[in-house]
C-alpha cells in the first residue's frame, strides 16, 4: 500500500521547540501516499510537537519538512493549511460558539470560491459521520466528546489536504466513540488519504496504520510494523510506553 519512492510527507533532521531548548531533536520520518503512519510514545515524548512543526505552529524549527514536492519548513501556518496539511488537533479545538456546519465550512476556507467542491467535501464528511448531518445547525459546544472529535476530523477533511494529521483522536472517548473514530480512519484510508496519527493507544495505532514510529524523550527510538508488534514487539513498546 505504501509507495516509498515518492513520500507525501518527508521529514529530515527536524529539531523544533519553544523558547531556548528543543522539544524534539533530529526527527526523520516519511509517510507514503495513501499510507497511514503512527507516532507512539509516552506523554512528553514530543509527538504533538512534531505535528505542530509540520503545521508551522512551532516558532523554532530546523531541518527539512516536505509535503509532496513543497518544502514547507519556512512557510507560515496559513499557507501550509491551504491544501497541504490539515490537523485534527489535541483537545479538538472546535470553534465552540459556532455550529457544526460552520466549523466544517471554515475548514474549507481556502476552497471558498469553489462551491461545488466544498459541497462535495461536506457531503463526504456527512457520509463518514451521518450523525453530524442531523446536528448540522447545532452549536458545536453542545455535542458529546465523540461527536466533537467527528467535527474535528471533518473540519480537517474539508480542506482536502495532501496529508492529514490526527493528534490523539481516541483520547477521553467512550469505547463506542473510539470504535467510530477508528472506522472513520479506516474509511479515509480506503478513500486514499495519507495519515500521520499520534496515539498513546497501541491497539488503535495497529488497527489503522501500516508502520509505527516510537518516540521517547524527543527522539524517534524505534520503527516497526503492526505485525512485529503482534508477534512480540509489544515488550519493546512497553519498555518505552511504561
Amino acid at each position, binding site marked *: 500500500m505504501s509507495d516509498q519512492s515518492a513520500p507525501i510527507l518527508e521529514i529530515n533532521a527536524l529539531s523544533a521547540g519553544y523558547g531556548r531548548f528543543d522539544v524534539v531533536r533530529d526527527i526523520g520520518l516519511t509517510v507514503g501516499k495513501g499510507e497511514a503512519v503512527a507516532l507512539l510514545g509516552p506523554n512528553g515524548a514530543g509527538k504533538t510537537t512534531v505535528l505542530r512543526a509540520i*503545521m508551522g505552529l512551532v516558532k523554532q524549527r530546523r531541518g527539512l519538512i516536505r509535503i509532496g514536492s513543497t518544502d514547507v519548513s519556512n512557510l507560515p501556518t496559513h499557507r501550509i493549511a491551504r491544501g497541504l496539511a490539515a490537523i485534527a488537533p489535541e483537545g479538538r479545538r472546535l470553534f465552540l460558539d459556532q455550529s457544526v456546519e460552520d466549523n466544517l465550512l471554515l475548514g474549507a476556507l481556502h476552497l471558498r470560491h469553489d462551491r461545488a467542491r466544498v459541497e462535495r467535501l461536506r457531503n463526504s464528511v456527512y457520509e463518514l459521520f451521518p450523525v453530524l448531518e442531523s446536528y448540522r445547525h447545532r452549536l458545536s459546544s453542545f455535542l458529546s466528546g465523540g461527536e466533537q472529535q467527528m467535527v474535528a476530523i471533518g473540519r480537517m477533511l474539508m480542506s482536502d489536504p495532501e496529508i492529514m494529521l490526527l493528534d490523539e483522536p481516541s483520547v477521553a472517548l467512550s469505547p463506542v466513540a473510539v470504535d467510530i473514530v477508528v472506522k472513520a480512519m479506516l474509511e479515509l484510508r480506503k478513500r486514499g488519504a495519507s495519515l500521520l496519527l499520534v496515539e498513546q493507544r497501541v491497539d488503535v495505532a495497529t488497527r489503522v496504520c501500516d508502520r509505527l514510529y516510537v518516540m521517547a524523550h524527543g527522539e524517534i527510538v524505534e520503527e516497526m510494523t503492526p505485525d512485529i508488534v503482534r508477534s512480540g514487539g509489544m515488550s519493546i513498546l512497553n519498555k518505552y510506553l511504561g
Partner: protein
Amino acid sequence: MLQFLLSGVAIGSIYGLIGMALAISFYVTRIINFAQGQLMMVTVMITAELASSGHPVWLAAAAGLASSCIIGILSYLIAVRPILLSNRFSFGWLVSTLGFAVIVENAAAYIWGPTSQAFPPILNSISVPIGSAVLTAQQILAIVTAAVLAAGFEIVRRYTLFGKLGMATAADPEMASAIGANTTVVAIVAFAVSAAFAGIAGLLIGPTTFANPYLGDTFGTYGFIAMMIGGGTERPIAAMFGGILLGVCAEGANGLINSQASDWFPFIVLVVILIVSPKGLFSASNPLFRPRRPASASR
C-alpha cells in the same frame, strides 16, 4: 423627561459607536486600542479642514474616514503587532497604543492648533419636534446610523464567511491559522472597520462639538465606559447598548442633578454596574441568564 431620554439616546449612539469600535478590535485581537478616540478625532479634523477649504462635505467626510482607517491600520502595524509577535500574552500594548494616541493627538494639535475649528453643520440646523421633545435632524441621523451599523455588523458577523472567520479568530487565533486564515489580515480588517466606526461617530458629533484635537480624550473615555458597562468585550454589539444606557444616564444627570453632573455621574454608573455585573450588562443575549461556558471551552 422625553427630551432627556431622546437626546440621551442620540448622544449614547455616538458613545456606542466608539464603544463598538473599541470592542471590534478587542474582539479579534484581545487588545484595547487606546488610540480609538484619536481615530475619531482624525476624521473630524480632516473633514473640517477639507470642508473649510471649499470641498463638498461628502468628499471631506469620505477623506476623513479614509484617513482614520489608514491611521487605524498604522496603529495596529506600529503599536500592536510587533508586541504581540514578540509575546502574545504581553501587556505592552497598554503603553504602546496610549503612546500612539498621544502622538496622533499632539500632531493634530501642532497642525491645527489647540482651539476648536468650524465643522460643517450637516443636518444640525434642522429641528424635528417629537411629541413634547425636540431633536435636531443630526441627532436623529446619529440614532439611525448607529442602529444600522450595529445591526449590519451583527449580520456580517453571524451570516457571512468573513464574519465567521472573525469569530473563529477571536476564539482561537492559532486554530484559525491552522485552517488557512491569515490572522494578520483579519486583524488589519478589524482595525480598519473599527476606525471607520469611530470616524462615523466623529462625523455624527462633529457639528455639535466642532473640530478640536483633544476631542479624542473625552469620547475615547466615554466609548470605553460604554464598552465596559455593556459588555462589549464579550459581544461587540453590547457596547452599543452600553453606550445608549450611558448617554441616557449622562443626559438625565445633566437635567435632573445639575448641568455639570455628566462629568462624574457616568463613572458612578460604571462602578455600580461593574460591581453588579463584572462582564457588563448585555454580555449574554439575555442579561438575566448567563450560561456558563462549557467545560471543554477552557484550555
